[in-house]
């Protein structure tokens, strides 16, 4: 009788425990499975395909693991896709173009964004939230439309050229579009809010009595700016730059629509390899190289900086 009771107790305790665990695990499982299946799995497949050979078949790549005549396991890893990337001039130039365009755009975003963020942070509290909302509002309108707006302004029969021609300032339309300049403008326009927001939140925290103190002690506005405002807004500066540079480097739509044929960025090369040449392995290896050499280092240093900052607070 006694034994039966304890057994019952143990079973009911176990059942309760199991119920608790399964409810909890179910909650963890749903997003976890989703991310594993649709994010981690695709990345692994991407890595796998980057090591296979391109063939004319469907799907257009060879499998790297083969089971030959039932007993032999053959693993074939091709490094050719990566070798090509580091020897073929087209890909090297693609990387250089991407870095240059993303770098220039980030610098310009900083030059435009910093004074704006500063002005917003120093404006009266009432209009500050409205000013901030006005910065985000274009971000909510479609991305393609924002790119299209610049096509309309810059194209040979676009707004700027028509206006200049109308006032007889030029005879033939200027080539404003289809060059890296237009691609930069498009990127600056699309990603400026990402620069302004982190800068604003850093500048807003600056105690302005520090600057008054600098003036009282005889510092010029320029010294005050470089020795107080810039160092104190550095976290926002780094965060904003990363937020602009990382999406800009892999950007496809803007260079495709505004950059013309010669602005071949990595994003466009991946697209062309995939849709144009049907070369899945090359597209995959280009992606992996972009991630390993450009995106990961920036993201990791930025994360480290954030953690350092948090531990300081």
């Amino acid at each position, binding site marked *: 009788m006694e034994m039966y009771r304890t057994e019952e107790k143990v079973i009911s305790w176990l059942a309760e425990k199991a119920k608790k665990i399964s*409810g909890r695990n179910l*909650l963890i499982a*749903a*997003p976890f499975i*989703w*991310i594993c299946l*649709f*994010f*981690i799995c*695709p*990345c692994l*497949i*991407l890595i796998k*395909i980057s090591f296979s050979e391109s063939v004319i078949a469907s*799907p257009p790549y060879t499998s790297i693991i083969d089971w030959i005549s039932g007993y032999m396991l053959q693993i074939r890893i091709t490094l050719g896709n990566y070798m090509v990337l580091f020897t073929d001039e087209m890909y090297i130039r693609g990387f250089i173009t991407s870095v240059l365009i993303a770098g220039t755009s980030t610098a310009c975003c900083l030059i435009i964004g910093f*004074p*704006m963020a*500063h*002005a917003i942070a120093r*404006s009266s509290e009432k209009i500050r*939230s409205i000013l901030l*909302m*006005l*910065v*985000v*509002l*274009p971000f*909510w*309108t*479609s*991305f*393609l*439309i*924002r790119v*299209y*707006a*610049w*096509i*309309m*302004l810059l194209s040979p*029969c*676009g*707004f700027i050229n*028509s206006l200049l*021609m*109308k006032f007889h300032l030029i005879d033939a339309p200027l080539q404003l579009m289809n060059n890296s300049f237009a691609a930069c403008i498009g990127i600056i*326009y699309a990603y*400026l809010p990402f620069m302004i927001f982190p800068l604003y939140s850093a500048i807003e925290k600056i105690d302005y009595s520090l600057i008054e103190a600098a003036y009282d002690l005889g510092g010029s506005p320029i010294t005050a700016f470089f020795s107080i405002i810039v160092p104190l807004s550095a976290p926002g500066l780094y965060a904003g730059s990363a937020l602009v540079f*990382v*999406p800009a*480097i*892999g950007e*496809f*739509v803007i260079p*495709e629509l505004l950059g013309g044929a010669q602005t071949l960025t990595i994003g466009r090369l*991946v697209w062309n390899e995939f849709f144009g040449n049907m070369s899945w392995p090359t597209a*995959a290896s280009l*992606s992996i190289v972009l*991630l390993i050499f450009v995106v990961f280092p920036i*993201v990791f240093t930025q994360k480290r900086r954030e953690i350092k900052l948090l531990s300081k607070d």
Partner: protein
Amino acid sequence: MRFKWSNFILFLGYLFLYFPLICIVIFSFNESRFVASWTRFSLKWYRELLSDPIILRATYTSLKVASLSATVSVILGTMAAIIITRFPRFSGKTIFVGAIAAPLVMPEVIMGLSLLMLFVGMEKIFGWPSENGTTTITIAHITLTLSYVTMLVQARLHDLDRTLEEAALDLGASPLKVFFVITLPMISPAIILGWLLAFALSLDDVVIASFVAGPGATTLPMIVFSSLRFGISPEINALATILMTVLSIGVIISAVLIYKKKI
């Protein structure tokens, strides 16, 4: 003097942000096909746009994909945010947190490419998804927007006063009841904002959709993108104006709602 200087900077900055968009709106009412000359006010391009069956079908597809993916993404994202903020460490939590946030920095081209490779592989093994229709776009968009939703809800959960939840638990409410009665109403602004953001992101995406969409499924951005390759088209002006109006009204309403709730 100094104050005026900053006003001047703001004026230039907002001019840069808004002038291109205002141009689109103005020229959407121009009768002429060319931006060179303003002939007269007309709603011609709106009429043409609204009688284009291809654009209407694509709009329907886009809205369907966006609302479905935003809804699933909000549910999964809220679950993920709760796991991140409320659950004690478990094995694999760091990987989980990293993988949830990763699509934020992943270039779209790479995400589209890798997801397509997954779908092709799955089709070869399981025979699903065979037609690569809107299902694949929806799945891809859920994966893309999940990280944004998780970040928003997570930030809200992090700032939340936990004493209320703890009090309810102490008084004997089940964790599920605590979530629905206490936590959910308090994080609802973040969830609504997350849904809107996910919806807008899905409605906006052209790269990932182009990779994973099959021949049967065309979203609105895909049509806009292909017509932009041929330069200026007045129908796109009209479409852009409509989209901008709808989106800004939505954003303003939600901003006002959230602002009021805070007070």
